[in-house]
């Protein structure tokens, strides 16, 4: 059984509780042990890294050090934003001068090296798509989905070093393993406008609207995401987008872990499907009951 350190991130405690819970449930179901980083704090994403790189890196370095204290060499996080910040800090700390300025801010200098990875990467690379497929008991046959990775999961490629930065396939392969039909989504790494969520709703409406429009053009039942901010923009703001663009999108936006959980027969109570804003029942109704095994 493989074992990795787990860094839930702040959004997992609030806006994306269902992502955190379904991630834990899915990992347990495929035999991946997540060990929570003790006493973890904010990674320094959105606000800190735009203001002060050293401070932002120090916040991440503290968490990396705590993860390292568990004796594990990989720390997994579900949130791409946390991933970016942890990875940037880990890479920049390889520079000695930078590491010293960061360590000066910390109670305990960050010594060991630990590799931050997304839960998606761990699932694909450590557990393996074949292993996930082997454990699927209730395949999502009949459900047609578009996988949306967002703009930072795989970029910049020389930093993230996972999958293709223009045409990533990790989530597509997991969804296929879960039995869903995956439409080739051409805008899978486009920006949803996340960082403009508060100041410029019009930009979010335009960018996220384009994504929903492309997904509708593919005739999918649902969009699948791996990013709390992307999910929020597409799902929570879908009515706002509809109002701004005079559209009538009704596309449920799942976390990939939620759909994977369904396929792995995780109890629905652990997947938080009730927390989605766009009603997913129509999409879930497309799933055909598995043929009786003779």
């Amino acid at each position, binding site marked *: 059984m493989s074992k990795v350190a787990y860094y839930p991130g702040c959004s997992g405690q609030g806006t994306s509780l269902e992502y955190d819970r379904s991630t834990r449930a899915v990992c347990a179901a495929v035999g991946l042990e997540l060990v929570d980083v003790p006493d973890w704090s904010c990674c320094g994403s959105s606000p800190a890294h735009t203001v002060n790189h050293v401070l932002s890196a120090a916040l991440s370095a503290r968490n990396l050090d705590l993860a390292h204290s568990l004796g594990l060499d990989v720390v997994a996080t579900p949130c791409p934003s946390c991933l970016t910040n942890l990875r940037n800090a880990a890479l920049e700390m390889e520079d000695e001068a930078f590491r010293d300025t960061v360590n000066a801010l910390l109670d305990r200098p960050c010594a060991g090296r630990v590799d931050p990875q997304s839960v998606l990467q761990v699932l694909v690379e450590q557990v393996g798509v074949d292993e996930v497929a082997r454990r699927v008991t209730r395949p999502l046959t009949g459900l047609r989905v578009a996988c949306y990775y967002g703009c930072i999961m795989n970029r910049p490629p020389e930093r993230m070093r996972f999958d293709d930065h223009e*045409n990533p396939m990790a989530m597509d392969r997991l969804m296929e393993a879960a039995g869903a039909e995956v439409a080739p989504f051409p805008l899978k790494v486009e920006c949803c406008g996340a960082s403009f969520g508060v100041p410029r709703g019009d930009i979010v409406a335009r960018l996220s609207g384009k994504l929903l429009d492309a997904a509708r053009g593919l005739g999918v039942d649902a969009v699948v995401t791996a990013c709390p901010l992307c999910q929020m923009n597409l799902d929570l703001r879908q009515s706002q987008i509809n109002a701004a663009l005079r559209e009538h999108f009704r596309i449920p936006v799942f976390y990939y872990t939620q759909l994977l959980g369904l396929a792995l027969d995780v109890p629905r109570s652990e997947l938080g499907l009730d927390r989605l804003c766009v009603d997913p029942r129509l999409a879930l109704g497309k799933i055909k009951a598995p043929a009786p095994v003779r």
Partner: protein
Amino acid sequence: MRIGVFICHCGSNIAGTVDVAAVARAAAKFPDVAYATDTMYACSEPGQEGIVQAVQELQLDGVVVASCTPRMHEPTFRRTVERAGINRYFFEMANIREHVSWIGKNTERNTAKAIELVRMAVEKLRRNRPLIPKRFDVVKRVLIIGGGVAGIQAALDCADGGQEVVLVEREQSIGGKMAKLDKTFPTIDCSSCVLGPKMVDVGQHPKITLHTLAEIESVSGYVGNFQVTIRKKARFVDWSKCTGCGLCMEKCPSRKAPDPFNEGLCTAPSINIPFPQAIPKKAAINPDTCIMKQKGKCGLCAKICPVKCIDFDQQDELVTVDVGAIVVATGYDLFDWHKYPQYGQGRYPDVITSLQYERLLSASGPTGGHIKRPSDGKEPKTVVFIQCVGSRDRSVDRPYCSGFCCMYTAKQAILTKDHIPDSQSYVFYMDIRSPGKGYDEFTRRAMEEYGAQYVRGRVSMIYPKGDQLVVRGADTLAGTQVEVAADLVVLAVGAEAARGAVALGEKLRVVPDQYGFFVESHPKLKPVETNTAGVFLAGACQGPKDIPASVGQGSAAAAKVLALLSKDQLESDPQVSRVTPARCVGCGKCVQTCPFGAIKLVEDRFGNPKAEVVETVCQGCGICTVTCPQGAIQLEHFTDNQILAEVNALCPPRIRVNYAS
């Protein structure tokens, strides 16, 4: 021995950072130096005359010139001393330009280094021996590798010059990339109409032997006397009988494989003549797709052939020819644009390459010259051209400009408007590079008369929307993002070295650059020569070139070949290895290490094995001399004595040893 030393100013190239007079003064004190001076330009006529005069008036036995690299002027000065009446191997050169003045700015240190280099040259010269070159006969025949337009031109020029020509082409027909083009810029004349007659001339010329579907197996020998083995691949058709009637093509039931001549836009039968103007116009079977070759039954073509020329058991054939010179004209290949994930990596059928578009435009192409989208056969109304795909892009390791893409894109934009008058073309470009004769006017016409919309900026992504493709890019002149809904996207793919070029270069001992293009002997003054004597370059194998440049280079290479083959005899280079038989123990290590196969083992009169150097094959690389455990092989002009003398001149030993033996 009386040695003269000449320190060259090379204008300010050397004199700018080296105190040449001081170097001359120091050199005058070296052993055996009878005369030392500095001279403005040693290579100029007065400079050379000064050397000749000094040799004759002062009865000098040897000359050292301290100037530029021997690559540039060693032959010049060797001729000079020969003119003065001494053996040309009593000349030594010290490189105080590339090795000193161009790389350092400190005059004091430069001067000291220049003095040391001159001291080395003097010490070596003191141990030089006269060497006399041998003469050997020249084979009056030339091999031309590659039957594209450059190779065709070189072959015709050589043949018209009276030499026998062997033309080897990898594909089934000659014609190369140019045969696939529809029209050519900047005159919009039909490509196959100008190339076709030349191809026919090659096929009919009594002096040209044509081998198609053939590759170079091995090359040995040296300038004037190359032995080349050519592998003629099995074509499963007896070409001495085939009339090119094409009946077999019509009946062949296997026609699922993509047609390489049409760039995979349509399929071709397994027995095929690639295009109507093919030379030679003979059919060949593709064994990978032929049902008979794969499954052992069918043989329909054999039944239907009126002259019974199908032979399923044909084998590859090896032909060996002796030639005096070789012209390499292997051309280029297109960059594989699947390395660009943002352009779909082949997921969208309506994103095609420029060469595929040429086939769509061509009357002999898969659509009969009607522009139809590959996906649904509809006529596109909005066509987007994207330039610099695989050119000038470090991220895909192609930082160089492919040179001709700006022009062919303009041509294709013009032809699009000709074919579909109500169409609109967009061209995403980085900048327009059209320096040839009539080229800039041509691109302007594409914009002004034919209304092609030129947008300066790269395309970030292409994605499908409905049955159209959205091309998203930047307009860097307007400073905005642009999106164009296109029916067809044409990628102006850049050029890269032909597949297999590096392997061929190894056989020919021609060096490829880091991108696989062959390196010419001198970028300005020897553009078609290589550093291997007797091997010449023509066309895009040396770097991306358009048709006029390729033709020009083909003729230039032919001129070089004709000059070489006009001589009945050539001189061999006497700087070769020599075996001292008394020392040789016949271990054969030198035979194993010689990269040119120039050493063989023979028996002396007592039956002992001894190494022997074949002088005309030896390239003087010296690998054997360092291999020999006995020190029995010495490289003439670079003997151990001479090299040790140079080393000692640089760092004198504490105990003086006399190496002057």
